[in-house]
C-alpha cells in the first residue's frame, strides 16, 4: 500500500494538472478558506503593487525586490499545489467512479406488474424497478423481492459477486452495480444526484469537505499566531525609526511571511484531504472529516465476536466418542455425514477426519450415498449409505429424534456436550442407525494475530469490548482466548445501545461496526459507526462510515488512520513554529545591520549579505512546503508505543528537527544563491 501510494504521488497524471490548479486556486474565494495563505496572498499582492511602482519610477536595486516578490507568490502557489495534488489523487478515483455511473436504462414497474424503459436518472425515491441479469442497478435501493448475485466491483474493486436478497441484512443495493444472475425488484431510496456513488465522488474529490473540529481549532491557533506576528512586524518601523534607521517594506513583508506558520497553513487542507483519501484507499468511506478525527480519539471499541474476533465459521476441533466407541469410528461416521455438507463447518469436519485420523475424503457418487439435507424443521443432516443412516445435528435436536425403542444412556452425551459449551465451543451429536456415537467439538476459531492486535490497542489506550449472543460462560472463554478487555454476552441491540451510552457518559468516545437494521440505533449513537456495505440501508445511513469490503476488523485500521491524521497536523505545526527561530536569526541582523552593525553578532549562520540572508529565508520558507508535501499526504507513521514515548519521539523529530533543519537549509540556500550571483 505504501508503495502504491508513493508511486501515485509522483504520478505525472496527477502532478501536471495540479500545476494548473495551483494557479486556478489563486481565486480569492478559494484562498479565503485558508486564513494564513490568504494573508500571504494579500501581502504578496501589496508588494507586487509596490514593486511595479518602483519599476515605473526607475528605483534602484529592484532585482532583490523582484526575487522576493516572486518567492512570495511561489509560497502561495506551492500551498495551492499541495492542495491540488491531494485533491488530484481523489479525482483520479472519482473519474473511475463516474464511468460506472454512465447512462443507465431502468425497467420501471407499474402497479400492474409490467415495466417500461425509462432513463435511470429520472427515477424518484419510492419507484420500483426490475433488474435482470446483465442490467446495471439504476440507483440506490432496497431489494423487495427476489434474490440475485451482484457484481459490486464498481464500488468495492472486488470482483467476486455478492448475494443480495429481500428481507434480512443483505437487502441494500447500490446504483452502478450489476446483476449477474437471477432477478430482483428494487425500491429506489435515493434521488438522482444523491446516490451513494454521487456521495463517494463528492467525498473523494474533496468538494464537500467541511473542516473538522480539530482543524477549525488549529486554524484559530494559526490565525492567532499570524496576528501576533502582525504586531511583531508592524511595530518594527517605529522601533527602527527610534534608532535612526529605516526598514524597507519588502524586508518587513519577507520577515512577516517567514514568521507566520505558512508551512502548516499551506499543508493543512492537503493533510485533511489525504486523510480521507487514505480511508478511501482502504475501501472505507467517511461521511465527514469529523468522523475521521473522532476515530483517532476512540477510547472504546465494540467488536462483534463473529467475523471480527473469531472466524465467521466454527471449525471442528475434536471428536469425542461415547464409552465403547473409538474415536476412529466416530470420525468415520462424522466424515460420511458431512461429505455432502458444503457449509464451512461441514467441510471442517471432513478436513479434521482426514488430517487427524487419515480418513480420506470419499466421493458421494462412488459410495452411492443418498444425501439428507439440513432443514429448519429437523435441524439435522446426514447421508444414507450402504443401508445405514448417519445423522449429525444440534444435541437436543438429535436427542429429540432418537428412536425411543433403542435403549441407551443419553446422560454421558449430555455431559460431554456441556463440557464443550463451557470451553466456548458448540457440540454436534452424531448418530448411526439410531445409536449415539459421540460429539463433534466445533470450536470458535479466534483469528490469527488478533490477540496481538488487541494488545496493540491496549497500548494505544483503547479498551476493547466483545459483543456476542453467546451465553456468558462461552463468551468469557472466547474473550480470554482473544485477549479482549471486556465482553457483553447474550447481547441484544438495546444492551449494545446502553453500553455505548454508558461509555459516553464517562466521557469516552466509542466506535463500533454493524450491518443489521437493529444495529442502526447503536451505529447512530456511536461516535464512530462503521456500517458494512453488505448491510441494510438503515445501517448504512446510521453510520458515519461505510466499509465497502464489509470487514469489521478494519475498525482498528480506521482508528490508526484517524490518529495519523491528527499526528500529521501536530507534527507539521510544531515543525512550522520551531522553524521561526532560525528565520529570526537570518533576518533580524540583516534587517537592522545598516544602523546597528553590532547585531551581526546574531548572524550565527554566517550568511553572505543582508539581501542573501533575507532571500534565503524566504526561499527556504517556500521550498519547505514542497518538501513536506509527501509527508503530509502519507502522514506521520503511528506507532502503538504509548503517548509519552510517541510524544518524545515526535518532539525530537519535528520539534528539535524543526529548530535545526532551517539553520542548515537557509545556510545552504545562501551559499547557492551567492554562488549563482543572484544577490
Amino acid at each position, binding site marked *: 500500500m505504501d508503495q502504491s501510494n508513493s508511486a501515485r504521488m509522483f504520478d505525472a497524471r496527477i502532478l501536471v494538472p495540479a500545476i494548473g490548479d495551483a494557479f486556478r486556486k489563486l481565486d480569492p474565494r478559494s484562498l479565503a478558506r485558508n486564513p494564513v495563505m490568504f494573508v500571504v496572498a494579500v501581502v504578496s499582492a501589496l508588494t507586487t503593487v509596490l514593486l511595479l511602482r518602483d519599476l515605473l519610477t526607475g528605483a534602484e536595486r529592484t532585482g532583490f525586490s523582484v526575487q522576493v516578490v516572486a518567492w512570495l507568490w511561489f509560497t502561495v502557489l506551492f500551498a495551492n499545489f499541495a492542495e491540488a495534488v491531494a485533491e488530484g489523487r481523489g479525482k483520479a478515483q472519482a473519474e473511475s467512479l463516474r464511468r460506472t455511473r454512465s447512462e443507465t436504462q431502468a425497467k420501471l414497474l407499474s402497479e400492474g406488474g409490467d415495466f417500461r424503459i425509462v432513463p435511470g436518472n429520472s427515477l424518484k425515491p419510492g419507484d420500483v424497478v426490475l433488474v435482470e441479469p446483465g442490467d446495471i442497478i439504476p440507483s440506490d435501493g432496497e431489494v423487495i423481492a427476489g434474490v440475485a448475485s451482484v457484481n459490486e466491483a464498481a464500488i468495492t474493486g472486488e470482483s467476486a459477486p455478492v448475494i443480495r436478497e429481500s428481507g434480512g441484512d443483505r437487502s441494500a443495493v447500490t446504483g452502478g452495480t450489476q446483476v449477474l444472475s437471477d432477478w430482483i425488484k428494487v425500491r429506489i431510496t435515493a434521488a438522482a444526484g444523491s446516490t451513494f456513488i454521487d456521495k463517494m465522488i463528492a467525498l473523494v474529490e474533496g468538494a464537500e469537505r467541511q473542516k473538522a*473540529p*480539530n482543524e477549525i*481549532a*488549529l486554524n*484559530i*491557533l494559526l490565525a*492567532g499566531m499570524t496576528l*501576533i506576528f502582525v*504586531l*511583531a*512586524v*508592524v*511595530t*518594527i518601523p*517605529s*522601533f*527602527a*525609526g*527610534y*534608532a535612526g534607521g529605516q526598514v524597507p517594506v519588502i524586508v518587513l513583508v519577507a520577515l512577516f511571511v517567514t514568521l507566520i506558520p505558512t508551512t502548516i497553513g499551506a499543508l493543512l487542507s492537503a493533510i485533511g484531504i489525504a486523510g480521507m483519501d487514505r480511508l478511501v484507499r482502504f475501501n472505507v468511506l467517511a461521511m465527514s472529516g469529523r468522523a475521521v478525527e473522532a476515530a*483517532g*480519539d476512540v*477510547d472504546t471499541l465494540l467488536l462483534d465476536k463473529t467475523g471480527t474476533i473469531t472466524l465467521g465459521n466454527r471449525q471442528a476441533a475434536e471428536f469425542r466418542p461415547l464409552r465403547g466407541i473409538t474415536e476412529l469410528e466416530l470420525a468415520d461416521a462424522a466424515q460420511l455425514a458431512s461429505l455432502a455438507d458444503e457449509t464451512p463447518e461441514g467441510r471442517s469436519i471432513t478436513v479434521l477426519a482426514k488430517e487427524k485420523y487419515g480418513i480420506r475424503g470419499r466421493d458421494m457418487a462412488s459410495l452411492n450415498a443418498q444425501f439428507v439435507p439440513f432443514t429448519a424443521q429437523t435441524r439435522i443432516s446426514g447421508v444414507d449409505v450402504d443401508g445405514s443412516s448417519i445423522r449429525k445435528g444440534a444435541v437436543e435436536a438429535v436427542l429429540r429424534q432418537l428412536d425411543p425403542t433403542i435403549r441407551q444412556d443419553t446422560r454421558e452425551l449430555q455431559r460431554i456436550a456441556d463440557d464443550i459449551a463451557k470451553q466456548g465451543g458448540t457440540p454436534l451429536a452424531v448418530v448411526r442407525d439410531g445409536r449415539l456415537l459421540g460429539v463433534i467439538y466445533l470450536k470458535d476459531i479466534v483469528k490469527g494475530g488478533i490477540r496481538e492486535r488487541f494488545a496493540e490497542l491496549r*497500548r*494505544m*489506550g*483503547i479498551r476493547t469490548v466483545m459483543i456476542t449472543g453467546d451465553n456468558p460462560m462461552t463468551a468469557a472463554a472466547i474473550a480470554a482466548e482473544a485477549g479482549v478487555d471486556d465482553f457483553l454476552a447474550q447481547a441484544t441491540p438495546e444492551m449494545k445501545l446502553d453500553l455505548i451510552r454508558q461509555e459516553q457518559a*464517562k*466521557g*469516552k468516545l466509542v466506535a463500533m461496526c454493524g450491518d443489521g437494521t437493529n444495529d442502526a440505533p447503536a451505529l447512530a449513537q456511536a461516535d464512530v459507526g462503521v456500517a458494512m456495505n453488505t448491510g441494510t440501508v438503515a445501517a448504512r445511513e446510521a453510520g458515519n462510515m461505510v466499509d465497502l469490503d464489509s470487514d469489521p476488523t478494519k475498525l482498528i485500521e480506521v482508528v490508526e488512520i*484517524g*490518529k495519523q491524521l*491528527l*499526528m500529521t*497536523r*501536530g*507534527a507539521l*505545526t*510544531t515543525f512550522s*513554529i*520551531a522553524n*521561526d*527561530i532560525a528565520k*529570526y536569526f537570518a533576518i*533580524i541582523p540583516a534587517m*537592522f545591520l545598516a544602523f*546597528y552593525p*553590532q*547585531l551581526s553578532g*546574531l548572524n550565527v549562520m554566517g550568511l553572505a549579505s543582508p539581501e542573501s540572508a533575507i532571500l534565503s529565508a524566504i526561499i527556504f520558507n517556500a521550498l519547505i512546503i514542497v518538501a513536506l508535501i509527501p509527508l503530509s499526504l502519507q502522514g*506521520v507513521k*503511528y506507532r502503538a508505543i*504509548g*503517548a*509519552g514515548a*510517541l*510524544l518524545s519521539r*515526535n*518532539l525530537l523529530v519535528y*520539534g528539535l528537527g524543526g529548530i535545526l533543519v532551517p539553520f542548515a537549509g537557509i545556510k545552504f540556500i545562501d551559499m547557492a544563491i551567492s554562488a549563482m550571483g543572484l544577490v
Partner: protein
Amino acid sequence: MTINGWVQILIFLGIAVALIRPLGGYITRVMTGERTLLSPVLLPVEQILYRAAGTDRDREQHWTDYMAAMLMFSVVGFGLLYAIQRLQGGLPLNPAGMGAVEPTSAFNTAISFMTNTNWQGYVGEATMSYLTQMSGLTVQNFVSAAVGMAGAMAIIRGFARADSRTVGNFWVDLTRATLYVLLPICILGSLLLVWQGVPQNLGAYTVATTLEGGQQTIAQGPVASQMMIKHLGTNGGGFFNANAAHPFENPTALTNLIHLVSIFSVSLAMLNVFGRMVGNPRQGWALLGVIGVIVLVGIVAVYWAEGAGNPALGLAGGNMEGKETRFGIALSSLFAVVTTSASTGAVSGMHDSMMPLGGLVPLFFMMIPPLGGIGAGVYGVLIYAIVSVFIAGLMVGRTPEYLGKKIEGREVKMAILAMLGPSAAVLILTALAVAIPAGLSSLQDAGPHGFTEALYAFTSAANNNGSAFAGISANTPFYNITLGLAMLAGRFLLIIPVLAIAGALAAKKTVPASAGTLPTTGPLFIGLVIGITLIVGGLTFFPALALGPVVEHLAMTLGQTF
C-alpha cells in the same frame, strides 16, 4: 559569583519550596469552604460580611456572572481610589499636608493598584497622605491580590469539575482569600517587620539636623502594614519611592528574606492548590517545575551578568551601580528575578543600572505570562499549558486533552486572546512612545538603553508587574494615560478570556486518562511547556529585544556604550 552569594540564594529557594505544600493545603481548605484553624474566629466575621452584602454563600455563578461581579468590583475599586487621591487634601490623616494628586497621575495610580500592577509614577512619600496609603493603596493591595486568586480559583474549578454550569462565587472567593489567607499572614508578617525596625506610625515626618548641619526630612508612616501585603500580594508598590531599597522598607537581611519569601509564597502555593483540586498534586508540581526551571536559569543568568560587570570598565567585583551595598550582587540579582517572575515589581536595586543581559532577564520574564503574580501566575502558566498541549498533543494522535478536558476551538481561541492582549499593548504602545516627542522626552538615556526604558515600562504595565526600570520619567500625562491603558489591557484582556476558558472547561466532561493520553506531569511535559513559552513568547518580542538589550550587550562586548 561567590559561594556566599549562592548560599544565600539557596536558603531562600529552600524556604520558598518548603512553604508550597503546607500553604497550598491551607489555601485549598479555605477556598473549598472546609474548616480551618482560623474558622472559629473568622467564620462569624465572614457570615456578617455575607449578610451585610446580601450574598448567598452557597449560590455559585456562571462564568459570565462571575466576570460581571469581578468587573463591577474592579470599577468601584478604581473609582474609590481615584476619589481618595483627588480629595486627600481635605481628608484626615494627612500630617504632611499633601494636596490633591494630579488627575492623570491619580488615574494611573488607581488603575495601577486596582489591577495588581502597582506601577508607581508618583513619589510615594511626597504625594500620598497616610489615608491614601492605608485606605486606598493598601486596601487595593489586598483585594486586587484576592481578585487574582479568585480568577485562579475559577479556572482551577474549570479543570476540576465536569458537567458544571458554574465556576464558583466571586464574592465568596474574594472574601475567603482576603480574610483567611492574606490578612492573617500579613498581620503576622507586619509584626515581624516592625520588630526588625520597619516604621508603623501615623506621626508627621521628622525633621532632623544632619552632621553637616543641614536639614533632612525623614519620611515615615504606616509602612510595615503596607510592606507585607505589597510582597505577599505580589503588588510591589512601595511606600517610599526607593521601594525595597529604602532602609525603612527593608532594613535588614531578615526583612529582605521575608520580602522575597512572601513574594513567592502564595503565588507558588496556588499551583499546589491547583494540583490538589484536580485530584493529582503532581499536575501542580509539573507547572511549578516549569516556573522553577525558568526562574533558576534566570537567577544564574542575572547573577552571572551582574557578577561579571562591564568589561570596558575593567573593574573587578562586578556591577555594583544602582545596588544597595547591604544586599550586594547576589541578593540584588535574586530580588530582580523574583520580583519580575512573580509579577511583583518591588525592587531592592535599580534595574536601569543592571548589565544589558542582567536587565534583559527581568524584562523577558515580565513578557512571558507563565511567570505571573498571585493568581495571574496560575492562569498564565495554564494558558501556556493549554497552548502547548494543543500544539504538541496532536502529535500523540488524539484530540488534545489537558487533565481530561478536551482542548477545542473555544479554548484555543480564548488562550490566543489571552496571549494577544498584553503583547499587543506592549508592542503598540512602545512603538507609539518611541515615535512621538511626548514619549521620547521622558527617556533618560540615548540609543538602545533608552529604547529599553520605554519597552520595560510598557512591558511592566501590560503584564501587571509594576517593576520600574527607572531612568524613565513616567509621571507625565502621556505615560500616565498610556501606561494606565496598558495595565487595563494586561488585567482584563487576560482575565476575561481566562474566565471564559474556566466556564467552557467546567461544562465539559472529564475524559478518563488512558495509555493514549498525553502525560502532563513528567520532565517531557515540563520541557514542552518551557519550549513553547520561550518560542511563542520569545518570538513575539524578538525584534524589540534585539533593538534593546541584545544590541546593547553586543555593543558592550565590542567596547561601545550609549
